[in-house]
C-alpha cells in the first residue's frame, strides 16, 4: 500500500502536490473509487453475458427449456459438422474479400482527402461519418433495391448501353460483399485517415527521387508505413464481417450465410440454444486469433 503510494508520488509529483493537495491515502481512495465505475460496467455488460454464454454452451438440450439444463459437452462435439465448417469457411472468405476491397478503396480515398484543404477535408469526413448513422438493416435493404431488377443499377447500365437488359444482381456473393464494404468503409477510413494525414508528404517524394516509380513509391510509403493501421482496419473489418447478419440474409443465398446467420438459425429455427452458444464461443476464439495474428504481422 505504502509502496504504491510512493510510486504515484514520484511519477506525478506535480499532479499529486500542486494540483491535488490531498493526503496520499485519500488520493488513493479516490482513485480506487473512480475505478469501480468502469469495472462495474465491464462486469455488467461484458463479463455477465459471456459467463451466461459459456454456461449455456455447456448445457444439455431440453425440449422444455430453451437454454437447456444440466451439464454436457454435447454442443461442442457437434461443432465439427459440414454445415458449421462450411459457413465458417465462407465467413473467413467473405472477411478476406471485404477487407481487401475496403482497403483498396479506403486507402486511396483517405490519401486524396488528406491532400485537400481544411474545408474539403471537413466535409468529406462529415459525409463519411454520416453513413455510420444508418443501421445495418437499412443499408442491406437499400442495397437490395439498388441491385434489383426493376429499380436498380442494372437499369442505369442498360440506359448507358453497357448492359442489354436489366437483371437482378442479388442474391449474389458480390451483392453481400458490396453491402459489407459500404458498411465497414467508414471504420476503415477513420482508422487510416489520421495516420495518413500525419505522414510527411516528402517521404513519398523522397522515394521517387531515389528511383521509385510513383505507384511503387505509393506502395512503399503509404502502404508499408501504415501497416499497423491497415492491420487494425483488417481486424475490425474481419470481426464485423464474421458477425454480419442482415446483409448475407437479405442479399445472399443460403450458401452465402455467415456464421452469424447460422447461429441465429440454430438458436431460433433449430431451438438449440446450447449449440448456438457453442458456435458463438468458437467465433469468439476465431476473432481473437485473427486480431492476435494481425497484431503480430503488423508489428514485424
Amino acid at each position, binding site marked *: 500500500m505504502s509502496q504504491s503510494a510512493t510510486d504515484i508520488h514520484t511519477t506525478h509529483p506535480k499532479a499529486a502536490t500542486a494540483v491535488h493537495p490531498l493526503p496520499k491515502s485519500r488520493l488513493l481512495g479516490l482513485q480506487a473509487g473512480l475505478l469501480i465505475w468502469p469495472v462495474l460496467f465491464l462486469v455488467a455488460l461484458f463479463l455477465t453475458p459471456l459467463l451466461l454464454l459459456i454456461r449455456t454452451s455447456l448445457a444439455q438440450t431440453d425440449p422444455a427449456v430453451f437454454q437447456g439444463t444440466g451439464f454436457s459437452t454435447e454442443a461442442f462435439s457437434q461443432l465439427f459438422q459440414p454445415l458449421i465448417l462450411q459457413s465458417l469457411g465462407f465467413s473467413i472468405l467473405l472477411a478476406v474479400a471485404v477487407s481487401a476491397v475496403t482497403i483498396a478503396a479506403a486507402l486511396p480515398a483517405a490519401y486524396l482527402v488528406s491532400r485537400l484543404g481544411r474545408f474539403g477535408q471537413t466535409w468529406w469526413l462529415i459525409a463519411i461519418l454520416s453513413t455510420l448513422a444508418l443501421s445495418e438493416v437499412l443499408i442491406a435493404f437499400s442495397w437490395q433495391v439498388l441491385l434489383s431488377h426493376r429499380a436498380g443499377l442494372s437499369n442505369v447500365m442498360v440506359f448507358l448501353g453497357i448492359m442489354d437488359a436489366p437483371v437482378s444482381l442479388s442474391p449474389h456473393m458480390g451483392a453481400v460483399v458490396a453491402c459489407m464494404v459500404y458498411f465497414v468503409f467508414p471504420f476503415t477510413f477513420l482508422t487510416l485517415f489520421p495516420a495518413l494525414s500525419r505522414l*510527411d508528404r*516528402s*517521404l513519398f*517524394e*523522397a*522515394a*521517387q*527521387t*531515389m*528511383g*521509385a*516509380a*510513383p505507384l*511503387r*513509391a505509393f506502395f*512503399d*510509403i503509404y502502404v*508499408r*508505413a501504415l*501497416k499497423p493501421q491497415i492491420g487494425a482496419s483488417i481486424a475490425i473489418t474481419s470481426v464485423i464481417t464474421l458477425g454480419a447478419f442482415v446483409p448475407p440474409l437479405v442479399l445472399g443465398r443460403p450458401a452465402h450465410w455467415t456464421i452469424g446467420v447460422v447461429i441465429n438459425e440454430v438458436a431460433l429455427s433449430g431451438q438449440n440454444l446450447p449449440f448456438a452458444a457453442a458456435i458463438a464461443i468458437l467465433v469468439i476464439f476465431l476473432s481473437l486469433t485473427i486480431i492476435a495474428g494481425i497484431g503480430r504481422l503488423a508489428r514485424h
Partner: protein
Amino acid sequence: MSHLRIERLNKSFGSFRAVEDIDLEIAEGSFVCFLGPSGCGKTTLMRIIAGLEQPSGGRIMVRGADITRKHVHERNFAMIFQSLALFPHLNVADNIAYTLRMRGVPRMTLEARVDELLALVDLPDIGRRRVDELSGGQKQRVAIARALAQDPTLFLMDEPFSALDAKLRDHLQIEIRSLQKTLNITTIFVTHDQREAMTIADVIVVMADGRIQQVGTPNEVYRRPANAFVAGFIGRSNLLPVEIADARTVSWKGRPITLHTTGRAAAADQHATLCARPENLALSVPDGANDALLAQVDLVREVGSEVEVHLRCAGERLLASITPAVWERLQGQRELAVTFDPARCVVL
C-alpha cells in the same frame, strides 16, 4: 561544358509567379547555394530541377541533354529534404539500401555498400537502429549517406541544417563540403542563411521575388553586390543615396566622396546608391579640415573582436565597424570624422 543549364525557366501557381525567367549555368563539380529570403522561389527552383514540380516554361539541360519532361525517378538526382524524409518504418540500413533495392543490386554488394557509406559518414554499426532512435546529427548523416548511395548525377539539399543548433550546423557544413570535394559531386544547396551560404559555397545565386539577383563567388557578392537588395541581404551595409559627380567622385548630402572609380561615365546629377560596408568606414578625431564629414556617436557596441559604432550624420544613420585598438584612441569623442575606403565602396 556546364553540368546543369537552366534556360528561361518560369513557374506560376495560379497568378502567383514563383520563379521568373531563370537563366543559370552550373559547372561540373561545383557547390552552388541558392540564397534568398523565404518566398523568393529558391525552393521552387530546386524542386523543378529535381522534377518534383513541372515548370510553366523553359528548359533544363544536364550535360547537354534536355531533361525538362523526365520523371523524378528517372533523373537520379539525390535530394535531402528539409524534414530529411527518412523512412520511419525502415531501419537505418534499409533506408540507405532503398535506392539500391530499386536498382536490383544483389544482396551481398548491397550490404557491403551500406557499410561503406555508414563508415563514410562516420556512423559505423548503427545499421540496425530505428530512425527515431537517432539524434539530430545522426539523422543528418544517415540522410547524407542515403543520398550518396544513389551515386547521384546531382546532389540537391533543401535547407537540411535549418533545424540544428549553431555548433552542429557549423560542423556538418564543414563535413558536407569536404565530402562534396572528395567525391566531386555537383551540389545545389538551398538556404536563407547568408552566413551559411558564404562559408559553404563556390558560387552563390542570390534570389528575390522569383528572380536571380546576382550570381557570383561569396567574395564577389560581398565585395561587388549587383544591387541594393544583394548589398542589404548579404552582410551589413550602409546604403547611401548619392549623385554621381564625375568618374571618381560621388556627392552625398553635398559632400564629395572620392572613390577609385564610380563605374559610371561622368554625368552630373545622376542618382545612384553607394554601398559602404561597416568595415569600409574609417573614423578619426576631427582635425578641423573643411570638407571633413562629421558624424555624432549614437551608440557603441563592443563585440569582442570588433567595435560597432552607430553614428548619425546629417539625419542619416551610419554603421561603422572598427578594431578595439582604434576605438581606444577615439573613446570619449562625441563627434567623429568619417572617411570612406575609396577602393572598397561600390556604386550600385
